[in-house]
């Protein structure tokens, strides 16, 4: 334990989001304060209590990936993953070779909706016409009912397998599912995989969609999502007094993470350092952290300690900020508990106000946004915050994107089930200063 610790450089970024199908268009829409929330176009949602979502628009995976063969093994969120990962790898200007493939890792967070609605419909018509499964018929015909590609597509590891095959990554591999914390935890784990020496480069990110009839029904039944169907662009309003649930989003975010010295040596463009992660469990309720912020507090403190940064050093916080009554209160109180008097000076925003909640992809996409915020010296805003909540009284950047130097950014992600992730990203100049 005497060698200098290995540090982690961010050298490539990729995104597919409700605001744009790549990094540049997403960032432009964020700066413009646009909302990606619309009436659901992907299917007829008119019978559901919620009929709005932040869908990815005009997405064609072939614009990123010309190769067709493996695409039949991909559900829609795997396609988002392939496109965002391709953008990140191209951006980094490095790909695995025969000589380096075993030193590349893949760490991702992915969604839970691994079967498609169309499959369930077909299953119901064939095997459960009255709602009860006909076991004899399933026994007689089940093995001919499903196509091998369909079986493969339904595996929870399908996206992981496609990413490995597409990029020829043969080293460490992990796929995480801690609901809305998945993407953040994936980036944090990827950082640790490089630090430990298991990999030199890791393709890391998250991808998800729950915008399908089953996912939407599940959230509607739970009462967790906003029903502001008549004003979709204003439905996601984190930290606003009138917030009434989140808005489903979809997409993917990926980063190429590299051991700092080797990234420097090859002259890579470095967006920043992924410098720390905190990972905790709220152990309170399945859907919420407690109002005190217990759980998220440990994640934020853990991330600061891991990065060796003090509360004074933090410039910008990309909040989890889902727009549910409890999350935004709990998160605000967690920030106050950790930052004390500093909390009032922090620039905090929730980009979910613009792109909705990307669930397992959220933490990864928001990590990418933090890297861009450092790069462009601009903190994104929280749109739709018009009625201040007296209990959520921090600076959420409601007035518009804020030009500011960002040397250290935090990204929070808290999941259903109580898993919490907090990441620390450092600007290249601060990282280099610490290097000396």
């Amino acid at each position, binding site marked *: 334990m005497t060698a200098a610790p290995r540090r982690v450089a961010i050298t490539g970024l990729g995104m597919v989001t409700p605001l744009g199908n790549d990094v540049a268009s997403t960032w432009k829409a964020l700066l413009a304060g646009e909302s990606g929330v619309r009436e659901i176009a992907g299917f*007829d*949602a*008119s*019978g*559901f209590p919620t009929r709005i979502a932040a869908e990815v628009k005009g997405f064609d995976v072939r614009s990123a990936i010309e190769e067709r063969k493996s695409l039949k*093994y991909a559900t829609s969120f795997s396609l988002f993953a392939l496109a965002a990962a391709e953008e990140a790898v191209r951006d980094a200007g490095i790909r695995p070779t025969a000589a380096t493939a075993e030193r590349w890792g*893949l760490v991702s967070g992915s969604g*839970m909706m691994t*079967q498609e609605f169309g499959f*369930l419909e077909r299953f*119901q018509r064939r095997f*459960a*016409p009255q*709602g009860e*499964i006909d*076991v004899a018929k*399933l*026994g007689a015909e*089940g*093995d001919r009912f499903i196509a*091998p590609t369909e*079986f493969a597509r*339904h*595996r*929870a*590891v*399908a996206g*992981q*397998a*496609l990413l*490995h*095959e597409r990029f020829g*990554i043969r*080293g*460490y*591999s*992990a*796929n995480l*599912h*801690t*609901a809305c914390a998945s993407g953040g*935890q994936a980036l944090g784990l990827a950082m*640790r995989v490089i630090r*430990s020496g298991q990999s030199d480069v890791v393709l890391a990110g998250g991808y998800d969609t729950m915008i399908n009839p089953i996912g939407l*029904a*599940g959230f*509607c*039944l*739970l*009462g967790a999502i906003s029903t502001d169907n008549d004003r979709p662009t204003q439905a996601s309003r984190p930290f606003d007094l009138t917030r009434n649930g989140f808005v489903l989003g979809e997409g993917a975010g990926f980063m190429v993470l590299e051991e700092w010295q080797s990234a420097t040596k090859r002259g890579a463009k470095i967006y920043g350092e992924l410098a720390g992660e905190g990972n*905790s*469990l*709220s*152990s309170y309720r*399945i859907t919420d952290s407690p109002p005190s912020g*217990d759980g998220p507090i*440990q994640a934020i403190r853990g991330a600061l300690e891991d990065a060796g940064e003090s509360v004074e050093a933090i410039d910008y916080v990309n909040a989890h900020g889902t727009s549910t009554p409890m999350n935004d209160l709990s998160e605000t109180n967690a920030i106050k508990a950790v930052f004390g008097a500093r909390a009032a000076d922090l620039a905090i925003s929730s980009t979910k106000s613009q792109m909705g909640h990307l669930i397992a992809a959220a933490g990864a996409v928001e990590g990418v946004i933090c890297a861009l915020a450092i790069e462009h010296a601009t903190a994104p805003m929280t749109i739709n915050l018009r009625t201040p909540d007296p209990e959520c009284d921090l600076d959420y950047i409601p007035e518009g994107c804020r030009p500011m130097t960002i040397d250290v950014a935090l990204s929070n992600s808290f999941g*259903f*089930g109580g*898993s919490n992730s907090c990441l620390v990203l450092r600007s290249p100049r601060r990282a280099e200063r610490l290097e000396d």
Partner: protein
Amino acid sequence: MSRGVVITGFGCLTAVGADADVTWEAILAGRTGIRHAADLGDFDFPYRLAGEIKDYNPRELIADRKLLKVITRQDVFGLNAVTQAIDHSKIIEHRTSLADSVSFDDRTGVFVGSPATKYSHQHDFLAALVGTTGDVASFGARAMEVVHPMWLLRSLPNNVLAYAGIRYGFKGANENITAHGISGAQAIAEACRYLRDGVIDRAVVVGYDSASELEALAYYGSVGLLSSEGLRPFDQRRDGTVLGEGAGALILETRRAAESRGATVYGEVLGSSVTSEAVGVLAVREDGEGVSRAIRLALDDAGTAVGEVGMISAHANGTRVSDAGEARAFREVFGDATVPVTAFKWSTGHTVAASGVIESILTLLCLTEARVPGIATLERLSTDCHGINVSAEEQKPASALGVVVTRGFAGLNSCIVLSANG
């Protein structure tokens, strides 16, 4: 800082036993839990074998009856194993004796190998689909009336993680890994990472699955992975795997944490690895390259030489390609060495996301008692699995150090290096 991670508690339930002792005795006695799947009744199903948990009664497995309303069958197994391991480790008694239990909870992690969502989770929506004939709008309206409001929460792939935390109040680092057959082994590896990194002092590790759900039998069968005869690892007549149910859990601690509370140490996790073959969703390389690389990386991580390995717990799922590739990898790494090879899926069925933890527990028992059970269903070693020391008869391990190999879809391979009595 010591890299040592010790095992201070364990528990499991499998098709052959409701706890680790009964499972171990059954395997030593050559008993298998593989039977015709109970739900199939007398129906003519081409693939009807399964390693199911027998006489399933959730109320006997989970004390909290309210909890049973918000979880599903696979979660019941996972949480039962968690309780067994925690009771075995006596960490809660230790916590009760502490003046400050807050930092104990903050520094206790939970690492889970999860099977992700099942086909059966979607069945709650079948009634809402009746008569909708492709009309999604009317499906949506019906679903609001006939589906349980808690459906989404009941179906979460991280329920065992969440409820293990809520039940015991643990608040440390956590991961929920969905990596098919290596999920459980990777949960062990990831817990060791956070213990070594000094982020936590102890962790609950659990792998769980109910892999033999009805639809899975049909669909796994459709892609040629299942046997309708039985699971016969490395055998000339092997023709596929048999899916099963179960869960295993371990309590892992830093050596310092275990010693400071005077815990009984059952063994040590010395090293681990994960490799990918990058060959697609269902394919595996015939040459076992991912397995041999995983074993080498794990031994390297453990700081252990090949010659120190005293036994191998093989993945041995009974499929033609996987078993042959694995045998080839063992020959490649261990040469013509006589290190005993055994396996457990022939008895428990392939418990997929649970298998890495269950098989690590059984390997620990092999090393502790210096007994390597035979593979009771092995009649004639297959020519394409030659050169490995596998037997239907019991053997002795060559040392108190063993390796546990697991494999999964996406070309994933994992190896865990264990030793008995730390």
